[in-house]
């Protein structure tokens, strides 16, 4: 990693990166994005296995996808929770994701867009710092 030596550097870096991260939000790529909540609660409920499952299986099933970890989404009661974003669509959060449901999510939601049980309606607003 190279140092960020000035505020201009930082801004440049951010603009570059927003392309990358933004793609997960702004539909600039055709990949499926799966985020697994990997905080203590999630991991304790098996999120690690779920994440491995998605990484492996999406590749094995030839689905262009990016699987990343993230922090706590707040739905501790429904761990493990994951967020799946299909290209061009709003992200959907699934709770109680065990391997069986993970498989269902790939087979139904990811492949066909058909929703499966366990959706958690997102009930919060997040601020945007880009002002």
């Amino acid at each position, binding site marked *: 990693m190279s140092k960020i030596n000035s505020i201009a550097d930082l801004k440049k870096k951010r603009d570059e990166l927003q392309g990358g991260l933004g793609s997960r939000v702004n539909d600039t790529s055709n990949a499926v994005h799966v985020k697994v909540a990997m905080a*203590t*609660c999630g*991991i*304790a*409920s098996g999120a690690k296995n779920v994440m491995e499952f998605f990484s492996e299986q999406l590749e094995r099933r030839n689905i262009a996808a990016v699987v990343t970890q993230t922090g706590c989404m707040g*739905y*501790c*009661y429904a*761990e493990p929770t994951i967020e799946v974003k299909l290209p061009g669509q709003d992200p959907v959060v699934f709770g109680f994701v065990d391997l069986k449901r993970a498989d269902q999510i790939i087979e139904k939601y990811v492949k066909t867009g058909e929703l499966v049980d366990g959706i958690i309606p997102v009930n919060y607003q997040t601020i945007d710092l880009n002002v």
Partner: protein
Amino acid sequence: MSHIKIELRKEDVDFIKGVCATFNNDPQELINVLHTCQEHFGYLPAEVQEVVSDGLNMPVAKIYGVVTFYSFFTMTPKGKHPISICLGTACYVRGAEKVLDEFKKELGIQVGESTKDNKFSLSSLRCVGACGLAPVVLVGDKTYGRVAPDDVKNILKEYEN
């Protein structure tokens, strides 16, 4: 005077001295030193504290005072599979005490004790911050969530061999 010394091996002493040295032999780093030693030895027997006292050039009484102040530090070795039951409020109201009782019954030991074969030791702790999974039980590094008294037998079974 009946001074009975339990010998630490030389490499143990060197290890402790080394730890002290990495923290510049600074008494203010005592807690970090103790953390590192406990991680290494599993507990902090008096002998280890003696060597730390020497390494940090501070009274061993002060070190003992610190060790006995913090619940994270222990002077008794834990079992091979240390079992901790969270008794934080969230776990408590969801019945953690009954789970603890079940462990006591199954293992035949009280909190703070180890089984005769030193396989399991039992402790309670305050909130691991996984309240969504209450009641929570830790066995070693593994976390079990939503544990009911009926699950206890099965959990112990996992560690049978």
